[in-house]
């Protein structure tokens, strides 16, 4: 066990050391040193976390314990500790693997950037916080990591801080996440208030006993578990960009592309999914929250996907597809198919990072032009990028035998066989979603790589394949995108014990995966079976429609836009979330603030605050005159003080 603790500590600390080394001395160290240091430490971290995964999953070890006591207040002890079990191990490998590749990729992508060292420092710092988040054994540390990744995300979205849009994007991400954090803090406070502890183990142990309790806030009849679960989920909604708190994720694309791949596709945004899985012992006892999660997730899966169809920025297309896939994961978590959810998280991490990095490679070749309408025909100039991007797209569209197929099909099947409230609605959403997914993915693929080049004549000649540091990660990510699903579907979802072991809790009546497992006969059979089901045909149909619309008959899409003007308007306005937020929160807030400000400026500011300040300054200026500099004055004060104390104490 001690071995596991030491290993995990090293895994977590190594990126921090890298971040400190590259960041604190960013003016002193060279570019080479910055990336060598951080990549070496990241690689070290990756290898160790693979070893941890071997120990945990292969040999069934686990560790739960306190590293050190951070603070103590009354009965409350605040520890920093690790909970290393199967779920953590899966997440650690995913995070360090993608992070490692993104580090390498960034050498090429950021090569000409002025803030090179700062960039490497930030992504290492992010990895540290993410690892803190997944290894936490208590809510407070979870929150620490949660806020830490939020901070890193903020810094990285606004990395090009002299770009107005980047500042706006980082600002928006930060604000929306504040909303989530507020919920999260309320949730944590609820846990602390009701269970009196913040450590997972005692809290989880106490949950079954209080499933029916309604006494968190006197005078109300809310179920304790639902109350806590809801507020914690609000946090997850913001971090994992679930509707309606998803608005920040598209804006976050203002950051450098490696960041979009690492933070806003593979790792940070999945923190909410991870949290729901980690807190499965809690959500199992609140059916209403499960339905809520399911509906939010399924709605997001379909409707954000629709928006992707009308986007022209290649990164935004991928961003909306991320939103949609996060919806799938949440839906799976909603129907208690946590394993499917985590499985999709892992496959998605690989193929979505691949797509983002592929998009980045395209953007690099296009000299930072991201508009799909200016691309086309890149297939010939950039074969490696094209090929890997194609693999990513196939995986995303759940075409067998690519990895996305297994995880997504499992989710759809799980939603299908679930009986909780809202399951049938969700099923419709996720099935239609697979058509939409295929349509927009292939649209982006065809627009970028097929057809005639629409860029200027001059630019056409400059397009060439990216350097090896850029395409190597693509190839390395393409491998799991192909084989990971087939290899892991059995042990991850259906075998007993599975890769996740007993790190998640599912009540028997909710256990859809177990029921599905009874019919499971291996990955190959699953592929064959899928040909008899809707989702696959929907996906193929989607891809085919995209081919017709963007390759065969390019005049078709403008026609549709004209025909379905209203639908197009709705989608281009993203269902009006942004407009509503802008009208209600931003401008409404401003108006209220202005009103309050006027009252505040006169009464509170002028009279109380400045008045107190003036009073103290006046006292201060007066009192300093006592300090005359004459020894006999000083001696006199001393004697006077002494006499006063004497008289007071003796005649008291």
């Amino acid at each position, binding site marked *: 066990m001690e071995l596991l603790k030491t290993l995990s500590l090293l895994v977590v600390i190594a990126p921090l050391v890298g971040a400190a080394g590259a960041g604190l001395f960013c003016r002193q160290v060279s570019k080479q040193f910055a990336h060598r240091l951080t990549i070496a430490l990241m690689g070290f971290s990756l290898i160790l976390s693979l070893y941890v995964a071997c120990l945990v999953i292969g040999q069934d070890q686990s560790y739960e314990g306190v590293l050190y006591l951070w603070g103590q207040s009354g009965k409350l002890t605040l520890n920093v500790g690790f909970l290393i079990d199967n779920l953590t191990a899966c997440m650690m490998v995913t995070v360090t693997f993608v992070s490692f590749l993104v580090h390498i990729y960034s050498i090429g992508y950021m090569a000409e950037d002025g803030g090179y060292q700062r960039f490497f420092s930030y992504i290492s710092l992010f990895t540290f916080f993410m690892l803190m988040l997944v290894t936490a054994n208590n809510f407070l540390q979870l929150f620490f990591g949660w806020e830490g990744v939020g901070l890193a995300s903020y810094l990285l979205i606004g990395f090009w801080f002299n770009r107005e849009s980047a500042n706006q994007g980082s600002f928006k991400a930060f604000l929306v996440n504040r909303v989530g954090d507020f919920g999260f803090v309320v949730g944590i406070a609820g846990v602390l208030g009701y269970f009196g502890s913040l450590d997972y183990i005692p809290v989880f142990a106490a949950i079954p006993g209080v499933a029916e309790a309604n006494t968190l806030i006197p005078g109300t009849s809310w179920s304790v578990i639902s109350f806590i679960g809801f507020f914690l989920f609000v946090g997850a909604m913001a971090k994992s960009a679930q509707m309606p708190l998803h608005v920040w994720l598209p804006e976050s694309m203002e950051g450098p592309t490696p960041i979009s791949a690492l933070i806003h596709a593979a790792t940070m945004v999945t923190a909410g999914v991870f949290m729901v899985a980690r807190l499965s012992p809690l959500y199992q006892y609140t059916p209403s929250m499960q339905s809520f999660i399911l509906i939010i997730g399924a709605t997001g899966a379909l409707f954000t996907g629709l928006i992707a169809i009308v986007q022209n920025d290649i990164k935004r297309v991928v961003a909306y597809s991320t939103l949609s896939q996060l919806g799938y994961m949440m839906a799976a978590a909603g129907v208690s198919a946590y394993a499917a959810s985590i499985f999709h998280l892992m496959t998605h991490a690989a193929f979505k990072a691949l797509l983002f990095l592929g998009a980045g490679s395209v953007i690099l070749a296009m000299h930072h032009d991201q508009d799909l309408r200016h691309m086309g025909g890149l297939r010939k100039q950039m074969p490696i990028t094209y090929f890997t991007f194609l693999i990513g797209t196939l995986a995303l569209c759940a075409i067998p035998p690519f990895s996305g197929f297994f995880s997504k099909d499992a989710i759809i099947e799980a939603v299908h066989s679930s009986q909780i409230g809202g399951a049938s609605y969700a099923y419709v959403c996720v099935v239609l979603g697979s058509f939409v997914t295929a349509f927009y993915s292939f649209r982006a693929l065809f627009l970028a790589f097929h057809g005639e080049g629409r860029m200027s004549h001059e630019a056409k000649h400059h397009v060439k394949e990216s350097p090896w540091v850029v395409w190597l990660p693509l190839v390395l990510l393409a491998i799991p995108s192909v084989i990971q699903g087939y290899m892991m579907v059995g042990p991850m979802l259906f075998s007993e014990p599975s890769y996740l072991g007993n790190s998640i809790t599912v009540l028997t009546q909710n256990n859809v995966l177990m029921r599905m497992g009874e019919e499971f006969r291996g990955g190959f059979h699953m592929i064959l079976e899928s040909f008899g089901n809707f989702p696959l045909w929907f996906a193929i149909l989607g891809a085919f429609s995209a081919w017709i619309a963007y390759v065969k008959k390019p005049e078709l899409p403008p026609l549709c836009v004209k025909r379905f003007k209203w639908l197009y308007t709705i989608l281009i306005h993203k269902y009006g979330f942004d407009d509503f937020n802008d009208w209600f929160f931003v401008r409404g807030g401003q108006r209220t603030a202005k009103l309050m400000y006027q009252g505040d400026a006169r009464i509170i500011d002028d009279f109380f605050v400045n008045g107190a300040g003036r009073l103290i300054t006046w006292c201060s200026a007066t009192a300093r005159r006592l300090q005359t500099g004459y020894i*006999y004055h000083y001696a*006199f004060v001393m*004697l*006077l003080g002494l*006499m006063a104390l*004497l*008289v007071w104490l*003796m005649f008291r």
Partner: protein
Amino acid sequence: MIEKLIFYVFAALLIGSATMVIVSRQSVRAAFFLIVAFCASAVLWMLLSAEFLALLLIFVYVGAVMTLFMFVVMMLNLDQESLQEKFVRYLPFAVLLVALMVGVLVYAMKPGHLGELGLAISPHPSADYSNTKALGLLLYTHYVYAFELAAVILLIAIVAAIGLTHREKSRNKRQRIDAQLAATKADRLQILQLEAEK
């Protein structure tokens, strides 16, 4: 009876001369009064049969320290008048404080408070009793630690005095090359715009 008489006479002398040390106009006179105060307190010590200490006080303080002190005071030639002025100005405060302090002390210290346990004068020692020896024995055994520390204080005083007075730089005239090189025009030359005389 006679002892009591001696005590009161010399105690009064001690207080009187100590007061004069503070209030006298000239520092030479103040120093003389200090000598008187030392002598008076030596007599008081004598009354307690502490001959060694009494003589030590006279030899060391009156004989050596105060003589040196007188030299210094005479050479310094302080400005008397300005000191006097402030003294009068703050006199009321001082008197008030002193009165208050004396009042409090008198209130707190009744004669019985101090004497209860062992201030009774010890019986007259025998003829071969040596005060000096007794003191020495005590000093080098029981109080050896404190004694050593007192020696350290003297050592510190020597080092500090040397450090404060011995300034090698000011005594011998040397060329300071670094200062010469570091000098700029502004240090040496000042250009004045003189009004033209009409």
